[in-house]
């Protein structure tokens, strides 16, 4: 929204009114009136789908800063963290085993069962399972599979030597039974029986899910807008980065006001260039429900030469989108605004979804399956898949989806905005028609109502209905190959309708601070398609979105634009005594009723060699000694070690001084951590029965090798009381007494695991160092002395963090932390000072152990969590130690211009000596940056 702003000194009522009136709303809020206000926005969204499907946490921040009267700069930053399960493919339910696998086999291959039972090669396959699961309490079928998918279990397509091991358990069966037959025709007949189960009309469809490990998407965007008299030119660009998708985008927009600002016309062009990979750890992640088990998806283009195919290298796709937009808006009356828009997008390149599969019957004939089986049986790695099919095989009758590599999209929209004077409300009615050459047509209707309420509250309920037809090449499953070779069973291309309803409440507080919160509910249903003919109800789901936002008008709140309303301001903190940026609790506000807002960013990284005590140690030593007691199928010691770790802490600092000798301080934190594992330090173990470090016997590296995981979530919240003990012009002493509330999670997970190892999905926790919270209530105290003489200042601080509980909900408590530091600084200029600092930190040992899966616990109905055990960071003994650092810092206080009164600090902390407990990664250093402003 564009609102003209008049400097307070020009604040004549008429001028203000005219200016406000002249600033008409324009397309995309780009009317040719400069936004002379600076603003900052923060937004949080929590998105959750039903049935343990996707969960997304969205953090957004943006800022708008006028650089000149006509030039405006914007920056936004999005961070999404997502996890959960996503549909991988769907197939006729009769092709799966659910409930009683024995019945299916009795109906379709009773002799096979007999054969298996007689010839079962391993009398007790269960003893090889991790944590020594006792099979007696689990629902295993006669074949030693836990409710495996029948179609997956019915062939040797993915057997060892060709595509790898997803079905190699079944290969044993095949070998023992059908394949043992000399009669090739009998084997073909056996495949035909298993693959071509007759389907009744309206056979129920089953969706099969795969798990999405916790991942993060980061998107910074920069924008510039220049306001000519009646024309606005905007450009913007940014990057969106996630582990398997990198997107670069840019756009340019021109809008022109005509007809005495009654009409606005705009044109725009945007380009997006994407790089797409397939993260193999996705498809290797176990599944949501054992009964819906998706076998491992194999990069089938590696199948012919499996031994030279590196994990994750199978897809290197790219796509390019070109989008053109036209917009038009017209003032119809004092209370009515009309708009219309058209957009055309051309997409080309890899437009498929790298994780979706399709069930296609008949693409491979029973004869060909036997040919494949024979090749597998003979270990023929040069087998030519392309002689059988051009599709990428991921399992029996399962292939990767393929979409056309071009798509033309057209969208036409129109909307009416009406002010209802009687209620002082505004109504928005929008309609959009969409059509593309994949034969998806859609209609979107949306209605929003903005109702001002007493106390400055705005209520905005909205409802949205959407309906689409299905893409030409969509089907839940395919009973015959398609001529054009395009297939997708992605629910997004099905025929369905959706209904979304929500309400947002917002309230404007004094000083230009606006807070809003809302909730929306969304339901996706095949039956909601307009006019019927939806794709059925098997893919129905619902989701909700809870969101909250904060908008700060930096100009109105006095934070930006220096001049206005600053006369009440005192001299800000005497920066001469301001401690270096890495020191917390080091500064007190000297006057009653002072309020300070601050932001502190601390970044630390680790990398390079591993340390034991103070000594660098080799990978062989880490492997031998870093993971006490760890073995897997005969292989001993750490499989991987951390290769790098970064930790960023965003701390929001609010301080208030009720009196001149006491300050209250609250500090919420956001944690941003990323860890990458090394490649395998030794040969990874392999076992068919599940206690394995390799997913496929043909894999060159374990999934832990090079594994990257990250966490972006709320940390603990600090609250402290600072009390002044002594103060004269040269010396100052204060103490801090407070605590830390366990608002940060200690249950961040890699993902869920299930399938043949565990009967139910079990969250796999990330290691202790990656948990954003301590999980315990902590007592935090500090004592600080600062002094100054002329241009020299100095200080010292002792602080302690003591855990008040001996275990958090994940079973452990971090060690206590004791830290002492002292510094010396010099005022280089009236606004700039430099400091040098020494710091010693003692971090105690972890008490207790992180929770681990327990068979007994599971049988007694306890909720189970598990954690990995293959790396040093998975062991409590490898945490804590003594650390010595030297810091170099700069502090600056802005004394003129728009940022008058803002204080900035930077400090680099260089490790000089470590003495770590156990085996830990070497610290590279840490950066602290602070901003603060006293009101």
């Amino acid at each position, binding site marked *: *929204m564009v609102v003209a702003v008049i400097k307070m000194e020009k604040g004549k009522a008429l001028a203000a009114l005219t200016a406000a*009136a002249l600033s*008409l709303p324009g397309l995309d809020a780009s009317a040719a009136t400069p936004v002379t206000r600076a603003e900052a926005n923060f*937004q949080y969204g929590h998105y959750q789908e039903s049935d343990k499907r996707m969960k997304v946490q*969205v953090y957004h921040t943006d800022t708008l800063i006028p650089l000149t009267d006509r030039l405006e700069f914007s920056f936004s930053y999005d961070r999404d963290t997502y996890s959960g399960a996503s549909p991988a493919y769907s197939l006729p339910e009769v092709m799966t085993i659910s409930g009683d696998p024995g019945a299916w086999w009795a109906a379709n291959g009773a002799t096979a069962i007999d054969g298996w039972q007689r010839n079962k090669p391993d009398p007790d396959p269960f003893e090889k399972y991790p944590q020594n699961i006792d099979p007696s309490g689990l629902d295993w079928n006669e074949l030693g599979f836990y409710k495996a998918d029948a179609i997956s279990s019915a062939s040797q397509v993915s057997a060892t030597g060709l595509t790898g091991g997803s079905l190699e358990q079944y290969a044993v069966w095949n070998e023992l039974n059908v394949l043992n037959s000399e009669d090739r025709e009998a084997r073909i007949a056996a495949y035909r029986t298993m693959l071509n189960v007759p389907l009744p009309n309206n056979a129920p469809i089953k969706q099969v899910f795969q798990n*999405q490990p916790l991942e993060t998407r980061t998107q910074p965007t920069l924008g510039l807008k220049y306001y000519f008299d009646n024309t606005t030119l905007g450009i913007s660009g940014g990057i969106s980065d996630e582990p398997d998708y990198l997107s670069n985008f840019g756009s340019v927009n021109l809008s022109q006001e005509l007809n005495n600002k009654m009409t606005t016309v705009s044109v725009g062009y945007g380009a997006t260039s994407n790089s797409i990979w397939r993260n193999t750890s996705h498809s290797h992640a176990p599944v949501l429900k054992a009964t819906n088990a998706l076998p491992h998806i194999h990069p089938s283009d590696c199948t012919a030469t499996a031994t030279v195919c590196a994990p994750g290298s199978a897809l290197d796709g790219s796509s390019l989108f070109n989008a053109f937009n036209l917009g038009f808006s017209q003032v119809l009356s*004092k209370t009515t605004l009309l708009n219309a828009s058209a957009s055309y*997008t051309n997409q080309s390149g890899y437009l498929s979804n790298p994780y979706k599969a399709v069930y296609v019957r008949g693409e491979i004939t029973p004869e060909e399956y036997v040919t494949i089986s024979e090749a597998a049986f003979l270990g023929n790695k040069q087998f030519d898949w392309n002689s059988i099919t051009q599709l990428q095989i991921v399992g029996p009758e399962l292939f990767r989806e393929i979409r056309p590599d071009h798509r033309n999209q057209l969208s036409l929209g129109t909307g*009416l905005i009406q002010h209802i004077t009687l209620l002082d409300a505004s109504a928005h009615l929008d309609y959009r028609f969409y059509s593309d050459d994949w034969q998806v047509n859609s209609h979107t209707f949306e209605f929003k109502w903005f109702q001002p309420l007493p106390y400055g509250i705005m209520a905005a309920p909205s409802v949205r209905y959407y309906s689409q037809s299905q893409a030409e090449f969509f089907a839940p499953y395919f009973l015959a190959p398609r001529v054009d070779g395009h297939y997708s069973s992605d629910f997004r291309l099905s025929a369905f309708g959706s209904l979304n309803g929500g309400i947002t409440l917002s309230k404007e507080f004094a000083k230009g601070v606006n807070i809003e919160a809302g909730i929306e509910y969304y339901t996706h249903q095949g039956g909601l398609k307009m006019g019927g003919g939806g794709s059925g109800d098997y893919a129905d789901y619902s989701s909700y*979105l809870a969101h909250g936002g904060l908008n700060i008008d930096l100009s109105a709140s006095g934070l930006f634009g220096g001049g206005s309303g600053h006369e009440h301001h005192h001299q800000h903190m005497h920066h001469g005594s301001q401690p270096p940026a890495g020191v917390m609790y080091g500064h007190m506000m000297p006057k009653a009723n002072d309020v300070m807002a601050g932001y502190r960013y601390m970044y630390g990284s680790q990398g390079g060699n591993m340390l034991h005590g103070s000594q660098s140690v080799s990978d062989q030593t880490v492997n031998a000694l870093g993971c006490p007691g760890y073995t897997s199928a005969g292989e001993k010691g750490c499989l991987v070690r951390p290769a790098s770790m970064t930790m960023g802490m965003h701390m929001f600092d609010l301080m208030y001084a009720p009196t001149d000798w006491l300050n209250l301080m609250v500090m919420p934190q956001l944690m941003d951590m990323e860890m990458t594992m090394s490649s395998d330090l030794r040969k990874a173990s392999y076992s068919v029965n599940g206690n394995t470090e390799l997913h496929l016997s043909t894999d060159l590296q374990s999934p832990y090798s090079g594994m990257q995981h990250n966490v972006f979530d709320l940390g603990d919240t600090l609250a402290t009381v600072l009390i002044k003990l002594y103060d004269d012009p040269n010396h100052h002493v204060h103490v801090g007494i407070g605590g830390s509330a366990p608002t940060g999670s200690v249950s961040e997970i890699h993902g869920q695991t299930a399938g043949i190892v565990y009967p139910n999905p079990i969250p796999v926790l990330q290691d202790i160092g990656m948990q954003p919270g301590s999980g315990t209530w902590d007592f935090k105290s500090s004592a600080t002395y600062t002094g100054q003489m002329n241009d020299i200042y100095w200080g010292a601080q002792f602080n302690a963090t003591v855990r008040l509980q001996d275990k958090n909900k994940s079973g452990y408590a971090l060690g206590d932390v004791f830290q002492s530091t002292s510094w010396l600084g010099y005022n280089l200029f009236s606004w700039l000072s430099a400091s040098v600092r020494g710091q010693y930190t003692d971090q105690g040992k972890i008490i207790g152990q992180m929770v681990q899966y327990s068979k007994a616990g599971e049988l007694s109905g306890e909720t189970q969590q598990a954690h990995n055990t293959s790396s040093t960071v998975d062991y409590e003994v490898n945490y804590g130690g003594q650390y010595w650092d030297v810091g170099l810092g700069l502090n600056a206080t802005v004394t003129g211009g728009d940022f008058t009164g803002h204080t900035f600090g930077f400090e680099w902390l260089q490790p000089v000596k470590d003495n770590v407990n156990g085996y830990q990664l070497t610290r590279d250093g840490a950066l602290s940056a602070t901003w603060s402003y006293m009101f």
Partner: protein
Amino acid sequence: MRFCLILPMLLLLLIGIVGSQGCSPVAAWERGNLAKKEMALDPNPKLNHLRDHIFTSREASQGGASGAGGGCGCN
């Protein structure tokens, strides 16, 4: 196919409104209501940005949303 008529009908309706009200000039001082935040084309761009990302990653239709945005987040 009957739904294909909706768009033209809606456009006709809107043109009807335009026709009936004409394009009589609205003077600057008469634009107080139009200048309200909730009368903007997109009164809540941050929330719309969030919703658009969800809708475009859950529905086949894309386009029509203002500005460029990247990323997939499409599992």
